[in-house]
């Protein structure tokens, strides 16, 4: 489909964008006393459905469903959303491997997926039917399962799968014609590499671990990042400041949650130009990602309220909104 074939879909998205939560809505919810108040606010904005019954998870699941239904109606190339769902898909693989190896059921650890949900993932792993997985997952699924069975080292298994996920995203992004999608994938991989480097530094991982975990991408020199992360926090901050991630370095100095927030905000910055794009599938992808960000932020607020976090602590964790 050409860019002009998305005119109808983009016009629908423009109307839908009016119902996205703004920074003001988020601020208002963050200032509420409890999760019940937040849920009430969301229900007034049309969140949830007839079956939600005030259950936070049901409300969020209903919103996920609504987003996917809309995206399906707009007939966007399915490979686009498949690519955006790679992190969920690989997460399900990790959860599946752990469940198969530990023999302990944990249904809550899986993302809902039309094809590779908990049942299918467990079946594939138990029957070693790796051909049933998408091609980009087959090799890593086999290897990660073998490593987990042999070593019972969950972290090693996670590193393998996470790295494969990043590599698959970069490869998938290169095949896409849409510039936003390519930029978003690049941004996601770069930010994830930084996250990995920060965690490795804080847990005292060595250079070998970093080499295995970091995925090469266009905007980051992962070799230099690995060197910086294996030296000291100062070196890592210096690397970030001098390689276009000054705000990330500032957030890192502030607190871990401020850094996590910066990571998500940076991704939202990547999609923001789509607000003024009238054609192409860019605004549809941006809307989908904005909804994911919105749902994630609401989940953070609900969790913070349910656990009695202060208003200040809640505000520190909330993300910037698309609108």
């Amino acid at each position, binding site marked *: 489909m050409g860019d002009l074939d998305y005119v*109808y879909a983009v*016009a*629908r*998205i423009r109307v839908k964008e009016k119902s996205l939560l703004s920074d003001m809505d988020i601020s208002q919810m963050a200032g509420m006393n409890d999760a019940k108040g937040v849920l009430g606010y969301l229900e007034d904005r049309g969140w949830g459905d007839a079956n939600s019954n005030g259950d936070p998870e049901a409300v969020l699941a209903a919103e996920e469903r609504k987003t996917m239904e809309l995206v399906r109606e707009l007939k966007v190339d399915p490979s686009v959303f498949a690519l955006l769902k790679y992190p969920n898909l690989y997460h399900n693989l990790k959860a599946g491997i752990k469940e198969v190896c530990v023999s302990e059921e944990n249904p809550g650890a899986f993302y809902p997926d039309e094809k590779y949900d908990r049942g299918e993932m467990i079946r594939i792993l138990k029957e070693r039917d790796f051909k049933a997985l998408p091609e980009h997952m087959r090799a890593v699924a086999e290897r990660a399962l073998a490593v987990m069975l042999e070593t019972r080292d969950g972290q090693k298994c996670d590193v393998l799968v996470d790295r494969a996920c990043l590599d698959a995203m970069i490869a998938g992004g290169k095949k896409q014609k849409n510039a936003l999608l390519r930029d978003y994938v690049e941004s996601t991989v770069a930010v994830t590499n930084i996250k990995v480097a920060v965690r490795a530094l804080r847990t005292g991982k060595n250079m070998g671990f970093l080499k295995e975990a970091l995925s090469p991408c266009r905007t980051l020199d992962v070799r230099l990042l690995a060197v910086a992360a294996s030296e000291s926090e100062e070196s890592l901050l210096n690397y970030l400041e001098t390689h276009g991630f000054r705000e990330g370095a500032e957030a890192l100095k502030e607190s871990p949650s401020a850094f996590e927030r910066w990571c998500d905000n940076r991704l939202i910055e990547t999609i923001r130009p789509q607000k003024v794009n009238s054609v192409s599938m860019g605004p549809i992808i941006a809307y989908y990602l904005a909804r994911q960000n919105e749902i994630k932020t609401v989940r953070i607020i609900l969790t913070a309220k349910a656990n009695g976090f202060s208003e200040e602590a809640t505000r520190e964790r909330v993300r910037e909104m698309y609108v």
Partner: protein
Amino acid sequence: MNSGMVFAILGAALSTALAGIGSAWGVGIAGQAAAGVVSEDPDQFAKVLLLQLLPGTQGIYGLLVTFITLSRIGVLGGTPITDVHTGLMYLFACLPIAIVGLVSAYHQGRTSVSCIGLVAKKPDQFGKAMLFPAMVETYAILSLLVSILAITNIKVG
């Protein structure tokens, strides 16, 4: 039929054909955007309909020039053309609205699509949204004037 008459009728045909193609494209693409908005917010029907119609005027201008031409060259009235020179003059007189009509309707259609998006997000900005595609109309009107002035000032015979 002599060659002069052929050229004159070619000009008349191009006026409607090219300007009409541009308008059909512009109204069509704006219609897709309008349908997208109305499917989510039916209250915006009247506003987006007006924006959809804006690129349709070029087709009407082309039709007008065709009628004026045909009524002067002996088809719907006037004096039949007997020489090639006069026929070519009619052909060139029709070209401004034919060409500018095609191009301006295309661009007006795209501008309308953007403005329909604007109305979708901010319905209260409809007045401003109308102005942007209306700016493109200026050039269609200028070419219409040039075509009409040229056609009506050609001396036949």
